[in-house]
């Protein structure tokens, strides 16, 4: 039983290993995450202390990424911002996966009128431009959440579960009529056992793929909010927006725009490559 279940996954792993772009994406992601987590303590960086005599210093040996308008070390700030962005991406995705899978599983497994009702609600939420919801939710938390970004980003994740619910529902609608589900029911398995032990493992491929693609979407969403001045913590989006605001024809502080943009873009690119690679590996039907 275990061997048979391992079959498709080891196939997928073999396909994924052959995909150089996806592997490169994994390596880049691990490198960036390690740098953000371990970098500041290892290099003894300090993101807070201001040096009035070192304002807007270009990159040098002492300050690899230069310094910002208050003379703070920019490398430290970029790495700290990265922590927020990555944390936001993964926490919000986790929230969206939990809600989306539960909702989609109930709708798809029971089908019928319940499914109709639940899916109309999803349709309604789809019709609301999510930017509205997110901005309004951010306003609700705006004053209470300074310094503790997590609840806000869980709320962001809760805006992102709709597509996941649709995907999971579609999988469940197909899988619930398959022979192995009938067999399980005949030997007396209950609904919960069928959902979690029999159908969910078979629907895991699309769930993993879509979750991987949700992470960059949430990171981008967070950066939009920071850009609009609604962010709650130091993040790449906030750094980029500060960098954009100093773009002018007379003097360019290019490092303030370039470093956070490059790190943000490479993280997002890497995540998208991994997501694409996983899709090709886990879902051979959807292959190009």
């Amino acid at each position: 039983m275990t061997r048979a279940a391992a079959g498709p996954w080891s196939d997928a792993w073999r396909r994924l290993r052959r995909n150089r772009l996806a592997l490169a994406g994994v390596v880049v992601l691990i490198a960036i995450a390690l740098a953000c987590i371990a970098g500041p303590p290892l290099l003894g960086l300090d993101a807070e202390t201001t040096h009035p005599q070192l304002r807007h210093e270009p990159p040098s040996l002492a300050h690899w990424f230069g310094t910002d308008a208050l003379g703070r070390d920019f490398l430290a700030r970029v790495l700290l911002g990265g922590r927020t962005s990555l944390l936001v991406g993964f926490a919000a995705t986790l929230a969206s996966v939990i809600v989306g899978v539960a909702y989609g599983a109930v709708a798809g497994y029971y089908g019928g009128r319940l499914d109709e009702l639940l899916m109309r609600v999803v349709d309604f939420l789809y019709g609301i431009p999510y930017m509205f919801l997110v901005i309004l939710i951010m306003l609700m938390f705006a004053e209470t959440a300074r310094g503790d970004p997590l609840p806000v980003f869980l709320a962001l994740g809760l805006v992102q579960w709709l597509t996941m619910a649709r995907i999971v529902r579609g999988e469940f609608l197909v899988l619930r009529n398959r022979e192995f589900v009938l067999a399980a029911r005949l030997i007396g398995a209950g609904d919960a056992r069928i959902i979690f032990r029999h159908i969910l493992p078979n629907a895991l491929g699309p769930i993993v793929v879509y979750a991987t693609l949700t992470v960059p979407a949430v990171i981008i969403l967070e950066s939009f909010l920071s850009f609009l001045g609604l962010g709650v913590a130091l993040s790449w989006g906030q750094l980029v927006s500060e960098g954009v605001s100093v773009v002018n024809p007379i003097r360019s502080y290019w490092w303030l725009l370039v470093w956070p943009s490059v790190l943000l873009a490479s993280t997002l690119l890497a995540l998208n490559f991994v997501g694409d690679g996983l899709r090709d590996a886990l879902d051979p039907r959807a292959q190009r």
Partner: protein
Amino acid sequence: MSGRWARGAWAVGAGLALLAGLAWLVGPSSALLLAAGLAAIGGVSWLPGRAVRVVGAALLAGTLFACGRGGLDAGPAAALALGVAALAARLLPVAALRRLAFAIPSLVLLVFVTTLLMYEAPGNPFAQERVASPQVEEALRAQYGVPRSGTAFFAVYMKRLLLDGSLGPAIKVQGRGVVDLLAPAVPISMALGLLALIIAVALGLLLGIRAGLRPQSAADYGSMGLAMLGISLPNFVIGAALMIVFALQLGWLPVAGWGGYAHLWLPAVTLALPYAAYIARLARSGTIEVMQQDFIRTARAKGLPERSVVLKHALKGALLPVVSFLGPAAAGILTGSFVVETLFGIPGMGQWFVKGALNRDYSVVLGTALFYATLITVFNLLVDLAYGWLDPRAVSEP
């Protein structure tokens, strides 16, 4: 049967969980109203055909009356609304009326949800002003129709909208209605959105179909690499890069600010690129799939030049996945303009929404939200129609 019971139990459980979540977010009484609204919307697909005709026509009449009241007296507006609704009830297919019976309550529910969220946010429209006494604040609240509770505000707002066709006075801009305030911004945002959509579709189709006709070629890898870049880079990074290159370095286009429609090019391209990238990927896979079909082989076998094979036979198939993406793309482009309008300093609707949200100008926020949601609803209907025309096999969903 235990299955039936289990299903009922799950439904009740899920409903209670949803309700608990809502109550945590907006308070218990509003949560109940919200749940009732969601159930009403969800219940539309359970209604039998005849009931759908009545409900759809009644809702249409109400909407038309409100729209008509914008320019007409009550009498003619009512006559117009009833006449059109009666015709619609006779002539439109049930599926279309069902869509209306879903879409119109959705818009009302959107107003309700937006109201609740705005009232949950700390602060209110009169908080920043130096209000001398509670009596003055009460007078201001009465004048602008902003009661202390969200549900009461919703009632006032809907009554005004339905009976007078008015979006109300702007709270933070003295002496002006929301409609006057937004009217100059609408054409700017529409032009920006439309231009961006056209650029996205044209660029995406061009790259995607070229790539799909020759998979694994240099053109394919080149355009898919570009597409990946377009999907991965946030809008404002692309925008800043374009601004630096085309406006600051080359000086071809104005940097930012507003001085006429030449100022739209950079923001439109910025807005369009991520969607062009998605469309290119969809068009590529659509093209690859359609080129393997039998009718393409037939077209080639009868000696058609490759050009007409592609343009006359393959294009429609390649368009299908793109068309179904157009609804979400239009919604994304319209709301994505919040960021781009801020970046380039363009006085459009998005700026009003953000400004209204930050100032707690409830009427302005609701006005913009309602405008965008209506636009997106109408656009989705059009996309469904186009889809049916491109692929008659597609069965329209309720």
